[in-house]
């Protein structure tokens, strides 16, 4: 869930809240207003967030953040302006900045109407971005737009940059799907070309550098850049890198890594050219729509965006931003039926309008026509509209009822058997352990004297630590590790676990399957084979499996295994099949698990007893 941090004072001012404010004058900075009872304001805002589906995650300040991360020393002199960190639902890109949050909440509280976003044609020539076919293999899509006569302030500028960052981290999938570039249009001259070139042929002065570098050099420099190093892999090993030029050969950006310094936007920038390039056309269009709808608020003609034309390699040209309004038709009784309320169509239309979904009742009086604005790319189905109606109605105002669904409960037979056995194992004096299903290769192979290739184990491709290399093929290592961690407990240690192991099995759709195993260990000054054997006898008695070779009975037969002491291992046969082994563990196994006492163990598959 993305977290947006906004200055509380700015937020309250924009929300036009009526908290009693007090004017705070700080020498050297502008006066600002602070709520007189911040705790009350915090609480009220928290409630509003909850109702709307946001979460006021933390109330902090820049100073506090730095001091928490880097220590009090570093935090000296940092701003102590109160910041709200607000968790925003992952699909609500329109709430990722102060502007969007305020707009959403103000419409929700019916203090303003949702703005109508308009795309306008320029007075002069339209800005053109031409895509060459070299981009096809690396970053085939681009969209663009112009924010004309915008007025930045420090706070607006910071929010503009921050929104791009939030979009990059979320919908843009860390710039892999979409990367955004914003430029001072007045420093450039169109038409622009989006092409791909060999890295050695790209040379420009990037943002916040004082000289020109080739793309190869830049990629080296940014390897140590804490922010940019995460994006290098997107193009690093490609023969051609994407790059955007203006008509004079000035580099606007080398997406998705860095913009050129030449067209850098400043507080004085009045006209902004925005390009979004990427591998996902839909998302590129959404990202562009979000940026321009959020910041056209500061344009001279509020909420209007100047169109730009993008020419694709096939010669077709499109105009962006799309800023498409879509109409959806939903029956009022569908909303009522899905939410469990009984509201009139008119009321439902009003509720939806409060969610920035302008709605009206049409047709037979039961139909609601809903206009989906370009800011709400998350609305893709009627169910999304239903949810918004429910949110505006207030989740906690919905009458709770019990469904009349009549069903007879059944336990999953394997789990039922497990539950029954667990209790009897504990009654037999053994203590239940709960161990991880993932472990290292060493645990299930080397330490048990087995070669990993003989285990049929499922291997994990991307573990962060060696503790999670494979899924366990036996419960024994987990129990032995548990004993090792509890060596200070009085002897004997008697543990058991009934849980799943995993092995490859090509007869299953995924090529692997679980088996429910029962494992028990006895750890003491003497091996206690007779105790483990007695436990097996007790289990068989509980399962109503008689001793003996005859059909349906169980026997143990001398066997061997690398984990067991020679001559001290037996195989368990029940219902005509081998179900596992018991025996005294080999001293090498005991030592490898950092244990010092003799130990006997039993491990069987319980699935034949279903």
């Amino acid at each position: 869930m993305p977290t947006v941090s906004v200055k509380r004072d700015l937020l309250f001012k924009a929300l036009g809240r009526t908290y009693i404010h007090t004017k705070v004058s700080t020498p050297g900075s502008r006066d600002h207003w602070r709520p007189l009872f911040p705790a009350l304001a915090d609480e009220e805002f928290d409630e509003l967030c909850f109702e709307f589906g946001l979460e006021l995650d933390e109330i902090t300040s820049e100073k506090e953040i730095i001091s928490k991360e880097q220590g009090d020393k570093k935090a000296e002199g940092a701003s102590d302006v109160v910041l709200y960190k607000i968790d925003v639902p992952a699909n609500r890109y329109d709430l990722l900045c102060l502007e969007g949050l305020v707009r959403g909440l103000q419409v929700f509280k019916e203090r303003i109407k949702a703005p109508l976003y308009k795309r306008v044609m320029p007075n002069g020539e339209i800005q053109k971005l031409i895509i060459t076919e070299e981009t096809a293999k690396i970053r085939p899509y681009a969209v663009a737009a112009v924010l004309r006569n915008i007025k930045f302030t420090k706070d607006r500028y910071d929010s503009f940059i921050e929104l791009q960052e939030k979009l990059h981290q979320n919908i843009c999938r860390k710039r892999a799907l979409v990367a955004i570039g914003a430029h001072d249009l007045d420093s450039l001259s169109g038409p622009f070309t989006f092409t791909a070139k060999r890295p050695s042929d790209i040379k420009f002065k990037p943002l916040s550098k004082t000289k020109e570098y080739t793309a190869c050099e830049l990629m080296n420099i940014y390897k140590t850049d804490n922010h940019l190093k995460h994006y290098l892999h997107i193009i690093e090993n490609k023969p051609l890198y994407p790059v955007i030029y203006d008509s004079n050969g000035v580099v606007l950006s080398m997406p998705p890594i860095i913009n050129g310094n030449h067209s850098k936007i400043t507080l004085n920038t009045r006209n902004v050219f925005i390009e979004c390039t990427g591998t996902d056309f839909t998302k590129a269009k959404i990202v562009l729509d979000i940026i321009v709808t959020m910041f056209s608020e500061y344009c001279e003609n509020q909420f209007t965006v100047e169109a730009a034309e993008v020419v694709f390699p096939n010669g077709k040209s499109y105009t962006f931003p799309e800023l498409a309004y879509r109409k959806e038709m939903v029956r009022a009784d569908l909303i009522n039926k899905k939410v469990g309320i009984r509201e009139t169509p008119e009321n439902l239309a009003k509720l939806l309008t409060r969610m920035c979904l302008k709605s009206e009742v049409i047709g037979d009086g039961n139909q609601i026509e809903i206009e989906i604005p370009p800011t709400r790319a998350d609305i893709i189905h009627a169910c999304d509209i239903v949810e918004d109606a429910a949110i505006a109605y207030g989740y906690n105002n919905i009458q709770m009822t019990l469904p009349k669904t009549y069903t007879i409960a059944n336990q999953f037979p394997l789990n039922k058997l497990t539950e029954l056995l667990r209790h009897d194992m504990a009654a037999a004096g053994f203590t239940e352990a709960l161990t991880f299903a993932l472990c290292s290769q060493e645990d299930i192979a080397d330490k048990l004297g087995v070669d990993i290739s003989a285990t049929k184990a499922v291997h994990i491709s991307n573990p962060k630590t060696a503790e999670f290399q494979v899924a366990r093929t036996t419960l024994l290592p987990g129990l032995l590790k548990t004993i090792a961690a509890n060596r200070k407990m009085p002897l004997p240690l008697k543990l058991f676990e009934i849980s799943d192991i995993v092995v490859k099995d090509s007869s299953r759709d995924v090529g692997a399957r679980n088996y429910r195993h029962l494992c028990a260990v006895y750890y003491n000054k003497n091996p206690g084979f007779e105790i483990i054997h007695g436990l097996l006898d007790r289990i068989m008695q509980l399962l109503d499996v008689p001793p003996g070779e005859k059909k349906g009975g169980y026997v143990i037969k001398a066997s061997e295994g690398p984990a067991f002491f020679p001559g001290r291992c037996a195989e368990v046969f029940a219902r005509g099949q081998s179900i596992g082994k018991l025996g005294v563990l080999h001293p090498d196994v005991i030592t490898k698990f950092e244990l010092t006492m003799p130990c006997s163990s039993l491990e069987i598959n319980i699935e034949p007893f279903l």
Partner: protein
Amino acid sequence: MAAHAPGAGSGSGCSGAGRDTPSAPGAAMADGPVADVLLRRLEAADGGLDSAELAAELGVEHQAVVGAVKSLQALGEIIEAELRSTKRWELTAEGEEIAREGSHEARVFRSVPPEGLAQSELMRLPSGKVGFSKAMSNKWIRVDKSAADGPRVFRVVDSMEDDVQRRLQLVRGGQAEKLAEKERSELRKRKLLTEVTLKTYWVSKGSAFSTSVSKQEAELSPEMISSGSWRDRPFKPYNFSARGVLPDSGHLHPLLKVRTQFRQIFLEMGFTEMPTDNFIESSFWNFDALFQPQQHPARDQHDTFFLQDPAEALQLPMDYVHRVKRTHSQGGYGSQGYKYTWKLDEARKNLLRTHTTAASARALYRLARKKPFTPIKYFSIDRVFRNETLDATHLAEFHQIEGVVADHGLTLGHLMGVLREFFTKLGITQLRFKPAYNPYTEPSMEVFSYHQGLKKWVEVGNSGLFRPEMLLPMGLPENVSVIAWGLSLERQREPPVPRP
């Protein structure tokens, strides 16, 4: 069965033997002749008697009498014994000597004959040095320094009274109180007397006084029961303030006890348990079937354990896969879809399931294929896996609890109603619901409960109505809604006692 294991014949069959039984008495009491005498004396005594006096009378160690008192006390109300501490004057070794043989000065006086004695000779006597100066200051003797052969000592008086000896003899006779305080302190300064504190018992008859007490039994025995002798025997009392012996038993794991409790709640509510015994899942069932787009961050290598071997699912239900593909990439079933290029290779990738909702998807798909549709209530509690580095607040595997209800016309109000019943069974009654986002539910709601300890609302679960884009490609009828909720077992606490 011990026969298999040479040398282990005895096993540990007699569990608990040899352990202490702290609250039960050990050996029988040690009573003896002293106790008998004590009881007889006490019977005759008027009021009570002092242990030290009795010891003196009997000529036994005081400690022997104290032992008798304690063992009689242990029998109950036979006697009452009050601990007293008394101070007493006793003679030091030197004091004893003086009481016997007279003070040093008296001995000096007696050794001086009427004709006198050379001082040097007198000084060689054992009491000479100390006795000479005392006898001088008592004016019993005098020294003639002008004698021809050195200083000579003569008697001044014909006889004297040896008060020191007399006083010490009084103390020895137990009559120290007859001495004046000043006299005692003088003798103490001369290290002839010391004051000792004596702890004694003042013993009197108890409410159950009897002179014929018999030996107490520690425990009831089979012989006593068969002979009936227990009727006449006294039993040594238990020490109820001691700890008991812990039962020699195994235990269930606390978290799995909570799992049992949750299973029980679901079963009470009529929910059938879904099979979840497949930790390995394909991306298809784990994500695609749930309408989770292929670029979703949860499908990132950083969050999910993917498999190297077996890397890909071998079989997928291809008809259904095509419907899922179309819904993702183009939409359908009333949906706009996500409008991206859906890749089968991505769906085939095997992983360790990140949620049990994958198992729910399989269960709902099976349900959809059974015609006609029958309403269901399903639940599961099992392990799920996330690619995390272990620390105090992160586990790479944990247990997810999930409930699912599918029926015609289910509403958000139904979901909240079921959740209220579910959480009420857990003892959680203060609930509220917050709008939330899940890729596969819409509407979605997070469940919060008021935490009395933390004094704030805490999230306890996540819930919603499964999206039509997930249900309709499975083949479920259009008017069937599926409500579902999930929570983490690890975040639940163990119930202190089974609730009624």
